Each structure stands twice: as C-alpha cells, then as structure tokens.
C-alpha cells in the first residue's frame, strides 16, 4: 500500500518532465528547414498533393493544436510514418527494440561484474597492485572513445583470434550472448570507470564506520564483515549511481550498435540522420527520453525497497 502511494507520488513528479520530453520532441522536427510535404512526396510533388499531406499531418492547424494532436497520437503509440521505410515508425522501433534492450542489459551485467570486484578490492587494498592497475586502466579507459575500443576488440577477437562474431545480433538467447559479447564489453569498460570510482569511495567510507569496527572487534572474520556489513552498505548507493548514469550507457549503445552493425535503435537513429528521416529521429528522441525516465523510476523503486533505512513515508 505504501509502495503504491510512493509509486503514485513519483509518477506524479515525473508527469511534468514527461510532458517536457514531448514538447522537446515536438519542437525538434520543426527546426528542420523546408517543407515536410516536399520531403514526403519527393518527385511526386504537386501543390494539391502537398495540401493533402499537410492536412493529413495536421500541419494546416495552429501550433498548439498540432502539439495536442502529436500528444494524443504519441500516447496511443502512433509515432508517425517513416519517410524512408514508408512504414509506421512505432513498428520500426518495436522491431529493433529487443536488440537494444538486450545489449543494454548485457552491458549492465558485465559492468557490475567488472566494477564490484575492482572497486571493492581497490578500496580494501589501497595502493595495492589492483588499485594502481585499475587507476591507470580507467584513466586510459575514460579517454578511450567507445568506438575505438570496439574497433580494437574487432581486430583482436574477431579477426586475429576469431572467437567472437563481429557483427549482427544472432538468433536465440545463446546467439545473442555470443554476438553481443564484444559490443557489451565495449560499453561496459567506460561505464564501469564511473562505478569503480564511486564504489571505491563508498567502501572506504563504510570501512571507517563504527559498525564495521564493532564487527571486527567481535572477532568476526574479515570475509564475514565484508559480506554482512561492508558490501550491503556499499552496494546500495551504487544502485543510485547506476540509475543516474544510465543515460550514459543508453547513449553509448547508439555509437556501439553502429560499430558492430547491430540492428537496434541506435543504428536506426544514425541511419535516419543520413536518410533525413525526421519522423524517426523525432520518435526515437521521445522514446529514449521516456525509456531513461522509466528505468530511473525502476532504480528508485529498487533502491527504496532494498534499503530498510528509507521508509516510504520519508521519501
């Protein structure tokens, strides 16, 4: 019941942002110079046909009326027609979404697998080999653009030692894992730099708290202290860091999907820029915005339900 109340409150706070996202997406397409009817009709352009197109798209109405139409259509999933594919944009997005969400989830899992051990060990053995190594690795890792990591991995593991497929999405769960391993690790390396830094700082902070000292004084083994006191308290804030930086990961997929030719939303976005397929770009902007908002809401709920100190009334 309390969770429902919290959910309602959070969604209520998100509505203005949600409306803002639709306004930005609506305004974006109006930045395009030129006549949409000309874009759509191409060689078949006649004034009569243009008038019909403008009427069908609602472009002969006032701007607020056009926005209202856009909003009503977006809510029911009508995101317009693609200039290039001559197909509903929503359909294109639905077809390509699974590859992107799989890649994001896979990269997220790999990031946690890299960041949690590295961050914890760096904090426990400050100045040790792992700490120093991780620091150099991440200084360079942060300055390495994702597409360059991708190109290097393709060269190494796709061509020189061909153990991974280097393009496409594969079929079936195992196929997806195999095909998306290199792209996911490419995304995970820069993203884990953020998490390692934050986790290392939190673990150091937790190690200095009274309850850790108490646990040590009770004579518990360091592993028990780590498992029962240090890790639970360090990993909770990591959920928030993960959520806040999620947009970074989502943005990374746009680039990486193109490097590995994965038929996802990112490659759709970039190809739509080249084909000047404005409705697709507009719809994807809207979709990515809403997607990030939804995942942020999920991480918030996860954080609140996992942290016993945060009662739902307080937040």
């Amino acid at each position: 019941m309390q969770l429902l109340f919290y959910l309602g409150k959070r969604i209520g706070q998100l509505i203005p942002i949600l409306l803002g996202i639709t306004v930005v997406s609506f305004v974006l397409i109006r930045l395009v110079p030129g006549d949409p009817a000309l874009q759509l009709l191409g060689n078949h352009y006649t004034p009569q046909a243009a008038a019909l197109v403008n009427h069908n798209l609602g472009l002969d109405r006032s701007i607020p009326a056009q926005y209202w139409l856009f909003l009503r259509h977006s809510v029911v999933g009508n995101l317009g027609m693609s200039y290039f594919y001559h197909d509903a944009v929503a359909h294109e997005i639905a077809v390509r979404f699974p590859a992107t969400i799989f890649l994001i989830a896979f990269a997220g899992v790999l990031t946690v697998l890299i960041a949690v051990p590295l961050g914890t060990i760096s904090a426990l053995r400050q100045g040790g080999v792992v700490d120093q190594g991780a620091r150099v690795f991440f200084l360079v890792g942060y300055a390495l653009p994702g597409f360059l990591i991708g190109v290097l991995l393709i060269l190494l593991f796709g061509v020189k030692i061909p153990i991974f497929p280097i393009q496409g999405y594969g079929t079936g769960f195992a196929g997806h894992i195999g095909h998306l391993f290199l792209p996911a690790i490419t995304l995970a390396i820069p993203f884990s730099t953020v998490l390692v830094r934050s986790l290392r700082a939190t673990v150091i902070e937790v190690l200095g708290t009274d309850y850790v000292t108490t646990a040590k004084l009770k004579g518990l083994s360091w592993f028990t202290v780590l498992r029962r006191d240090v890790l639970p308290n360090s990993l909770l804030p990591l959920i928030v860091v993960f959520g806040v930086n999620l947009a970074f990961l989502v943005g990374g997929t746009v680039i990486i999907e193109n490097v590995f030719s994965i038929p996802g939303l990112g490659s759709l976005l970039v190809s739509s820029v080249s084909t000047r397929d404005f409705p697709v770009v507009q719809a994807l902007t809207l979709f990515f915005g809403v997607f990030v908002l939804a995942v942020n809401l999920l991480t918030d709920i996860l954080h609140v339900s996992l942290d016993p100190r945060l009662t739902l009334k307080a937040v």
Partner: protein
Amino acid sequence: MVVASPMVTGRSRVIARTQVLVPTFMRGRIALITGTVLLVISAIGCIGAPLFTQYSPTAIDPLNPLLAPFSPGHLLGTDEFGRDLLSRILYGGRYDLAIAFGATSVTMVFGMLVGLFAGHFGRPFGTIAMRFVDLVFAFPFIVLVIAIIAMLGPSLFNLFIALWVASWVSYARIAHGRTVSANGYGYVVAARALGFSRLRIIFRHTLPSVLPACLIFAMVDAVGNVLLGASLGFLGIGIRQPTPEWGSIIAEGQNYILSEWWLSILPGIALVVLGVALSLIGDGLADALRPRDAR
C-alpha cells in the same frame, strides 16, 4: 575518514600516498604538469601543423597510396588516396581541439551563470530554470546531440550548437548546488545584511566557491565533448568528408584495419593522448583547488 569527491578520478590519492618521494608542495601538481605538457604539445602540433609537415591534409597523391609509416617523405605513411597521415592527424586535431575548448567554454560560462542566478534568486525564476535543466537531463546526451544535428543538418557549426544546447545543464546543476550552500555561509549572509547589490554578492562572494567545481568538471566535460565529436565524425554525422577529423580518419582507416592497421590506430592514439591530458589536468586541478585543510 576519506570521502572522494565524485569528480576526482582518484589520481590525487596516488600522489598523496607517494608523499615520501614527493615534496608536499608538489602533491597533485604532477598530474597537472604532465597533463598541461601533453596538452601544450598537442596544441603546438595541431595549430602549428604547417611547421611540421609540408603536405596538405586533403592533397591526393594517387601514385603513393597506403604507404607504411617511415616511408621516405611520409613519416606516418599515407592513406588509400595517398594523403599524408601525419598532416591529416595534425590538421585534424585542430577540429578536436576546437570542440574541446569552443564547446566546453561556452557551456561552462552559460551554465554557471544560470546556476548562479537560479541559486541566488530562488522562486520562481530559479525553480523554473532548474526544472528545465531536469528536462534536458532526461534525454541521453548523445541522442539529443544527434537529434539536433539531424534536424539542423550536419556541419561543424551545428555540432557546436548541439553541444551547447545539450551540455550547459551539468554546469547549471553544479553551480546551483554550490550557490544554494553558499547562501548559508556567514560571509554571504553578512554581505546581504550590509546591503550589497545582488550582482556584487553573486560575482564577488558566491562565484569564488562555485568556480572551482565548474572548472574541474569542465575538464571532464571537455574529454566527453572531444570523444563525442570524434564519435560523430566516426559515424559520419557532424564534421563531413574530406575534412580531416580524428574520428573520421579512424572510420576511414577501419576499411584497411587488417593490413594497414596504423591508419586507425595512430589517430586513435592522438585522441587518447588528448583525452588523458585533459583528464590529468582535471585531476590536478581538483587537487590544487581543494581547500588546504581537506587535503
């Protein structure tokens, strides 16, 4: 208890621990000096490109395509059109440096001003401004930049516009947070009580506690902007052919990655060096600008 600021990459602590070897006054400066030296070398190489190479970055030489590095006359070899790779990297770096400084400085100043005024004036102006910041934050940065470029048309100037529109919000958020806390500091309260003008309070009393955080973030942000500019060049959005830009040189070289790998790897190294230089400066600044007792 040590709590690292999220912006500090932790390099500072390496140096703090080597204090036996490094005199106190040098702490944190090694990163700053190394970074500055790397940046100055890159800047001299790119801005003074005509001094180091006699070739034009776009001059085609069909008789000498795909020469290996250390070929006579071409230190780093040539690409598939016989264009000199060294001159392409040096001239191309001008665009990446322009993105690092041109995009970042504008967003820093604008975002910081918005944050300062929003934090100082509060409701209703500040609240509206910060809600707008939240809105821009809702989009993945790259998606917003690509969308704006898509609508305006790909060009270097439109890339700048897109970066300006999408990235001032981070500074606004940082500056707003610092300003709100500064509002509670004794000297700001005192300045108010003395009836100083709002502008004087903002720029003389609040700005000094806001600027360091923004400056440190600017270095991190500059790395991000350079990488984004190169990524868009790699994807063929933004800077267009045949303009040499590191990202687009890497993309072209990708076709020859099996045999002539240096066509991609050498501009990649240049990109990483610039990125590391800016990161090191950011780390060094973070350490140098921190209040003395917090070190």
